[in-house]
């Protein structure tokens, strides 16, 4: 009887430890426990020409402080733009309506996030409002392409004033 009791205690302890480890893995190693889902929020949308690799769940920040998260990413087939819905924590309810939203990159190769910079309007964003001023994601390939194009044009001009043979007029 005593032996059986000790054995049950040991088993109980093991199972408890196992579930504690599972709980730790699901809450502490993921951002799930830190999401804004449980807190009251309001939703604003913004249309972007190009969102790069912005993902659902990416942070929305203002002055570097996280104020919400990207909730949905859709596509507007009339003007071919990406529609990003953001859930902004209701604590931050004083964002001017003429604020602008830009997509930035965390670190050099990190994930994308949305940064809001405040405008000067006296009216504030409400639920289901839209941010009109947006700036697309910074796409590294485009920048490199532009740089290379400029570079080759400049070097072509400096070598000779005659137009390059390969370029049709």
């Amino acid at each position: 009887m005593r032996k059986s009791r000790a054995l049950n205690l040991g088993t109980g302890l093991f199972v408890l430890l196992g579930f504690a480890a599972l709980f730790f893995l699901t809450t502490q190693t993921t951002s799930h426990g830190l999401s804004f889902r449980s807190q009251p929020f309001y939703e604003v949308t913004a249309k972007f020409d190009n969102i790069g690799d912005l993902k659902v769940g990416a942070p929305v920040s203002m002055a570097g402080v996280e104020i919400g998260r990207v909730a949905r990413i859709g596509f507007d087939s009339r003007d071919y733009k990406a529609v990003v819905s953001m859930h902004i924590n209701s604590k931050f309810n004083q964002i001017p309506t003429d604020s602008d939203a830009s997509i930035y990159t965390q670190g050099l190769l990190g994930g994308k996030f949305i940064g809001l910079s405040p405008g000067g309007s006296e009216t504030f964003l409400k639920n289901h409002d839209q941010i009109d001023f947006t700036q697309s994601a910074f796409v590294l390939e485009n920048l490199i392409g532009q740089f290379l194009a400029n570079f080759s044009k400049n070097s072509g001009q400096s070598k000779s004033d005659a137009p390059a043979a390969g370029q049709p007029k």
Partner: protein
Amino acid sequence: MIGELWASLLESLARLGDTVRFLLRILAQVPRALGRLQLIVDQVFNAGALSLVIIMLSGLFVGMVLGLQGFQLLERFGSEEALGTAAAIGLVKELGPVVTALLFAGRAGTALASEIGLMRATDQLSAMEMMAVDPVRRVVVPRFLGGVIAMPLLAAIFSLIGIYGAQLVGVQFMHVDSGSFWSQMQSSVDLRDVNEGIVKSCVFGVACSLIAVYEGYHSAPTAEGVGAATTRTVVTSAVIVLFLDYLITAFFIK
């Protein structure tokens, strides 16, 4: 030569079919075996609590190696802060379930196979049948369920200890910033990754326990037979676990 190969292929196919039939037989007895919870608790203790020390030690060392190797690699790109992410994803998705399953097959699977095999060799199973006690229900099912319950818990403990092992090497020894270690981990490990690990360890739990009880139950009733059954348990479990691992990983890729 070809004929032998063909025969051995047919032989393994027949074993596979037999194992699946044995699984169905076990599952049919599960509801009635649940009536005697104490038997299952005993087996959770045998398979789980007794494997705890080896699992925790292995988890610690695997985590520490991961921390050291990951640090060396990430340092080249100047992104040591990603160590937390690398260690957590590696442990939770892959190393936790797989290494736990391999250790489980070595520690608990062999114990199950040789115990049941010895019962077979000493005619204890036949004696039960004579007393109208179904040995599958009385002996096999509690051991199977004990393994199935213990495996996901062991894998979770392994991953947890492993992450702290990586943290120990990365943060304490190599001076990666503790805050970015944890925050980078939290921002890039998805709940989906944790789910993948849990699904894997549950499937491995079923596979390893099934193989162990099957080999034990069907071992030849001799000392040699029990030894062969134990060996086959480890070999088959290892191969099946790695095969299933690939399958589940492929399934989880978007």
